[in-house]
C-alpha cells in the first residue's frame, strides 16, 4: 500500500462544512441530513416533500456557488452504461432497504453513537473495498 492524492486539509474543511450543514438541518428542521432518506422521501412520501426537494436543490447549486471562486471542479466518472445502471440501482435499493448511506449512517448515525449505523457503515465500506479489489477502479 502506498498513499497518493491525499488532500487532508480540503477534506477536513469540506467535511466540517458537511457536519455544519447537518447541524443546521437538525437545529432548524429537527431532522437528520441523510441524503438517501431525503432523496427517497422526496418521491415516495408527501410529508415535508418541498423541504426535501429544496435540500436536494441546494446540493445541486453548492458546486455552482463554489465554481464562482474560479477554481475548477474535477469529477471523473465511468462512462460504462451497464455499470451506471447497475450501480444506481444497487445504491438506490440498498440505501432504501438499509435505511441510509454515507451521510445518514456514516456521518449522522455515527455522530449519535447509533450501533445500527456503525454496523451499517463498516458493512458498506468493507463491501465497497472488496468490490474495488475485484473489479478495479
Amino acid at each position, binding site marked *: 500500500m*502506498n*498513499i497518493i492524492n*491525499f*488532500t*487532508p486539509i*480540503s*477534506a477536513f*474543511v*469540506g*467535511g*466540517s462544512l*458537511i*457536519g*455544519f*450543514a447537518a*447541524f*443546521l438541518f*437538525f437545529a*432548524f*428542521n*429537527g431532522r437528520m441530513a441523510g441524503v438517501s432518506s431525503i*432523496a*427517497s422521501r422526496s*418521491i*415516495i412520501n408527501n410529508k415535508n416533500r418541498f*423541504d*426535501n426537494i429544496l*435540500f436536494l436543490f*441546494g*446540493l*445541486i447549486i453548492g458546486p455552482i456557488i463554489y465554481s464562482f471562486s474560479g477554481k475548477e*471542479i*474535477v469529477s471523473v*466518472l*465511468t462512462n460504462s452504461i451497464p455499470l*451506471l*445502471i447497475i*450501480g*444506481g440501482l*444497487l*445504491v*438506490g435499493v*440498498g440505501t432504501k*432497504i*438499509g435505511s441510509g*448511506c454515507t451521510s445518514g449512517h*456514516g*456521518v449522522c448515525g455515527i*455522530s449519535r453513537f447509533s450501533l*445500527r449505523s456503525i*454496523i*451499517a*457503515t463498516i*458493512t*458498506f465500506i*468493507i*463491501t465497497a*473495498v472488496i*468490490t*474495488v479489489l475485484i473489479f478495479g477502479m
Partner: protein
Amino acid sequence: MTKLSSLISGIIFGLGLTISGMVNPQKVLGFLNIFDAWDPSLMFVMIGAILIFSPLHFIFKRKSRPIFAENFIVPANKNINKNLIIGAIMFGAGWGLTGLCPGPAISAISLLNTDVYLFVLFMFIGFYLGNFIQSRK
C-alpha cells in the same frame, strides 16, 4: 420557514462535498482502493463532519424543540436486522462499482456530466424498488 433552512443546509452540504473533492468519484474510489494506491481523504471528510455534528447535535438536542419545526425526528429503530445488513452490502457494491453515493451523485448533476444523470435516474428507480420490496413484507 423550514423550506429556507432546508435549502441553506443543502447548499452548505453541497459546498462541503465540492471542497472536500467528494463530487469526484475517482477520489472516492481512491479511498476504497486501500490495497493498492490509497487516498485516505474520505476518512478525513467523515472525521471532520462527525467532529462538528456530533457535539453540536448533543448540545442542541437538550432543547425542547427545533427552531422552525415542531419536534425532533430521530431514527428510533435500534434493531440490527437482515434488511440493514443486506441493504448496506448492496449499497457498498454499487458505491464500489461507480464511486458514487447519493449526496455526491445529486451534487454532480450541476457539473453537467451526462453519465451521472443515468446513475441518478436509476438510483431513484432503486428507491422505488426498495420501497416496494419493504412494503411487501
